[in-house]
């Protein structure tokens, strides 16, 4: 039961590719892998704690004012994330800029609060949040990897010790596909990825149908 709540967010109900929620940060911060991972971590933290708190408070929040209550809970945790990032990783804080406070209006978080945490127990809500958060982080990292590798020929990770945290890819670094790092590249890539996932779903459905038909014929 619980493992299902955990894994559904990663593949079957992936917030980015399947439900298509929270598009603004997905496209805006995916120019570098490190930014995508940090954004994912921030969202995961906010999602986890807001889901837990909303699930705990669900019997005390009156139905008619529930959305403002959820927003206050979410905004409090976003403020915490903002302060932590500002204090410990100022470079990432500056790179994420306005998109960090904008986690408040990320539809995934309010969506999970409304659709899941307000109806389920604390443990299930926490698992749901972790699954959705990981799904979101993986999707962001995947997009960022494509955009950064093609667009600037590098993979930027956390600097550790004397290593500056940048992996350089030989040929692409010299002749990068610049458009991928620009705004239009993000939109184009998102369109093609979504089309690819649509095509996959259609194909697997077709296969299942023909398998059913064969089964019936046999």
């Amino acid at each position: 039961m619980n493992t299902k709540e955990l894994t559904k967010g990663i593949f079957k109900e992936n917030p980015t590719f399947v439900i298509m929620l929270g598009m603004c940060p997905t496209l805006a911060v995916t120019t570098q892998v490190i930014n995508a991972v940090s954004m994912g971590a921030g969202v995961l933290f906010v999602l986890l704690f807001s889901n837990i708190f909303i699930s705990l408070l669900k019997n005390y929040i009156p139905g008619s004012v529930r959305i403002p209550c959820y927003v206050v809970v979410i905004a409090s945790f976003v403020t915490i994330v903002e302060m932590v990032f500002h204090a410990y990783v100022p470079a990432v804080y500056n790179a994420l800029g306005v998109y960090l406070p904008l986690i408040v209006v990320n539809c995934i978080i309010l969506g999970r609060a409304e659709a899941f945490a307000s109806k389920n127990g604390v443990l299930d809500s926490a698992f749901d949040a972790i699954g959705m958060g990981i799904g979101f982080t993986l999707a962001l990292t995947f997009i960022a990897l494509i955009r950064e590798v093609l667009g600037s020929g590098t993979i930027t990770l956390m600097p550790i010790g004397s290593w500056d945290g940048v992996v350089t890819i030989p040929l692409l670094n010299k002749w990068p596909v610049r458009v991928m790092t620009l705004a239009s590249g993000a939109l184009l890539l998102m369109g093609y990825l979504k089309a690819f996932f649509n095509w996959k779903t259609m194909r697997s459905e077709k296969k299942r149908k023909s398998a059913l038909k064969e089964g019936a014929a046999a």
Partner: protein
Amino acid sequence: MNYIAILLTYIFINNFILVKFLGLCPFIGVSKNSESAIGMGLAVTFVTGVASVVCWCVYYGLLLPLGLEYLKTISFILVIAALVQLVEMVLKKMSPALYKALGIYLPLITTNCAVLGIAIINVDKSYNLMESFTAGVAAGLGFTLAIILMSNIRESMELKPARKAFRGVPIAFISAGLMALSFMAFDNSLLTNLHLA
């Protein structure tokens, strides 16, 4: 920075949708026909304009004197939510025709990144009250421009549908990407050439 420069910046150079990706959800969701696109665009412009002014007053009148800058995110989102509710009630009472046109879009605007985005950008760039209002209206107009263009593209696309896997959202993203490519023609050199920068 003068007002024409702010207008040009937020309508063309930093178009909220095509460059900054703020307000992408309604852009994809409500752009299927041009009538609702215009309604959504006008509703957003109205709210970004008013919210810029109100959030500016809250920040400089309340948060800054009390040393509570860190409460900016939480107070802005509450102000915006209350404001949208208020606008909805006022419109319903004062102008039923306008309410009928914009009413269904207003609840959606609370969680529109563009509104909170412009309020935060105004504070980050330390605009004064008039500049904030101009930036708010310009951001809304940029949103309106992009969503109307998008709805026209999608309407004409219905006559020549794309391949099955691309239909709907994917082709919308790809069209938006191509639009963003053409909007790259507007950059800061526009302001320099017009002697505004």
